[in-house]
């Protein structure tokens, strides 16, 4: 009798232990896509990023394994204060585990701080500033797709080597533009070039003629566009009008997306050189994903590298969760696991995440095709150079990130 009671108690205790064990093995995840859904960056991130997240959830097959994955999305309007308000509410009320996309460097830096404070995760696929993995790095943030250092290094170096040794910068007047200008100027000077001037324009400017005239008057060989999205497309279009390129100066698009080239049309965009880490037509893996993606987009657009990054980043996050056996709702712990595991997906290939949170993969230097070279809609790029993953980004030796042991 005593024996059976003991056995019963023991059984209950075990059962209880099993249940508490299971609650640590919580299989619910909430993903928040925080992006620009309506402004000048909406085509390169925006609704496409939410779709990419949706596709990652479907392709991960987690639902069949008993996981419950929720997705929320919001528009930060490119305002850091709006972004942090949404982020706070998502963390405190909605219990969001992970932030995806978060384009716009101003918003990203603000959310980056909050994410660390609240111990959730940020996989940033949209913001450019290399500060996210440098001075501002945190154990909770992974910077997935590209950054200003990498862009400057690849495009800047290639252009100086080709003879473009004097530069004039047209810079978007906020965190991103400043970072891109700073990193590119450093590369230009290091490669033996000279920066002879800069003009800073407000974000989301419609008319660039004044700025372009100043760039023209500077007689610099290269006009470096340290801006993005609608600002860059307007600059390029109006530069053609003011005869910048026909006058012998060369435009350097430091950050261009396939959606920008689509919006410009090949007639205007042809011949531009710039760097991306993803292009839909790179290989069978990218083509297969992009075709599925495009079919589900309202305007049938191909994915930008930002949107591709959302898909790729989430797949890796899911793998880390599975390896942990559940969601510990502990941002730093999951990110540590993500750094331990090598990354591998059809869009960015094999890669890894460094101690400072930098995701490593190759960078591709592209040239925009001439209209007669293009075989159809979205056939825009020629690959003209590849920088291997270990050389594309800022070397750890130069890093100011406190997480890097020296």
């Amino acid at each position, binding site marked *: 009798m005593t024996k059976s009671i003991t056995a019963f108690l023991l059984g209950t205790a075990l059962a209880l232990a099993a249940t508490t064990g299971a609650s640590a093995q919580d299989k619910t995840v909430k993903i928040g896509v925080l992006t620009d859904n*309506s*402004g*000048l*960056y*909406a*085509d*390169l991130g*925006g609704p496409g990023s939410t779709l990419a997240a949706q596709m990652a959830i479907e392709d991960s097959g987690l639902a069949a394994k008993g996981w419950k994955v929720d997705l929320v999305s919001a528009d930060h309007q490119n305002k850091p204060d709006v972004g942090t308000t949404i982020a706070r509410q998502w963390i405190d009320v909605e219990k969001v585990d992970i932030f995806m996309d978060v384009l716009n460097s101003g918003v990203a830096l603000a959310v980056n701080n909050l994410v660390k404070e609240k111990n959730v995760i940020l996989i940033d696929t949209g913001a450019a500033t290399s500060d996210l993995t440098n001075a501002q790095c945190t154990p909770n943030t992974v910077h997935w797709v590209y950054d200003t250092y990498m862009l400057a290094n690849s495009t800047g170096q290639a252009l100086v080597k080709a003879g473009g040794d004097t530069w004039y910068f047209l810079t978007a*007047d906020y965190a991103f533009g400043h970072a891109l200008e700073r990193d590119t100027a450093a590369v230009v000077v290091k490669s033996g070039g000279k920066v002879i001037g800069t*003009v*800073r*324009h*407000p974000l*989301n*400017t*419609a*008319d660039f*003629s*004044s*700025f372009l*005239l*100043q760039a*023209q*008057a500077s007689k610099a060989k290269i006009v470096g566009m340290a801006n993005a*999205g*609608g600002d860059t*497309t*307007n600059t390029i*279009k*109006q530069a053609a*009008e*003011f*005869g910048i390129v026909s*006058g012998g100066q060369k435009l350097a698009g430091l950050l261009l997306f396939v*959606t*920008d080239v*689509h*919006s*410009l*049309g090949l*007639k*205007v965009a042809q011949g531009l050189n710039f760097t991306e880490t993803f292009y839909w037509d790179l290989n069978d893996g990218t083509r297969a994903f992009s075709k599925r993606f495009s079919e589900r987009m*309202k*305007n049938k*657009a191909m994915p930008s590298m930002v949107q591709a990054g959302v898909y790729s980043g989430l797949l890796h996050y899911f793998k880390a969760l599975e390896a942990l056996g559940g969601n510990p709702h502990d941002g730093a712990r999951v990110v540590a696991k993500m750094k331990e595991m090598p990354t591998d997906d059809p869009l960015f290939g094999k890669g890894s995440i460094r101690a400072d949170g930098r995701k490593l993969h190759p960078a591709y230097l592209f040239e925009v095709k001439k209209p007669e070279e293009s075989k159809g809609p979205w056939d825009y790029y020629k690959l003209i150079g590849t920088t291997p993953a270990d050389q594309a980004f800022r070397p750890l030796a130069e890093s100011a990130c406190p997480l890097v042991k020296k």
Partner: protein
Amino acid sequence: MQALYAQLLVGLINGSFYALLSLGLAVIFGMLNIINFAHGALYMMGAFCAYFLLTYGGIGYWWALIIAPIAVGIFGIILERTMLQWLSGLDHVYGLLLTFGIALIVQGIFQNYFGSSGLPYSIPDELRGGVNLGFMFLPIYRGWVVIFSLVVCLATWYLIERTRLGANLRAATENPTLVRAFGINVPRMITLTYGLGVGLAALAGVLSAPINQVRPLMGADLIIVVFAVVVIGGMGSIMGSIITGFTLGVVEGLTKYFYPEASNTVVFVLMVLVLLVKPTGLTGRTA
């Protein structure tokens, strides 16, 4: 010094758009007493109309200059007939809210189907290239925009201030009942005036299509500045809005040269100053 001339000219180009748009607003406010917040969306529709004509109909820029304002003008007339006319006699706020709502809906619909980064529209072949003026390289298209909008602005001013039709129109705003007694169909005249104002916005849209990307939000970005222009010039004053439009374009151009970071705000700083000193605007009459 050379750079300064160049900036002055560039300012005039932007001023042309301000003038065309604020002129339309002034006409609508002066005659209908409606603060037309849908103006930016209608400007955008003009640009899209040009894009559709070219892409789906193969109809080029020159025809678009005529067809787009008429098409969008008809859309405006439908708006006026079905919605705005019921607001006449009510407080300004109702018209403002209604047109603002319409603008949001129209922009939302376009954004849903065409995304935000815009569609390409190229400069017509006849106006390609540019001339070197010594102090700057002037794209021929930009020169065309300045001259064409000046002509349109002055023609509109002449129509309203110097012709019999304009006189009737102005009389109708002063005292509709009396003008009706003379056998003039006032509601129809009001509707056509709204159509005219809207057509001017669409015309500005077509003019701007080759310079800027054809984007759903192209008007939303511009409309706030244009409202500041109207306030500075004096609500409802036709000549005031034309002159202020061009002047503010130049002021903004100069700011872009001397202190580019402030170029987005300079118009509003001026607006505040003008409101403090002369609340009716520079050329406005006291109500």
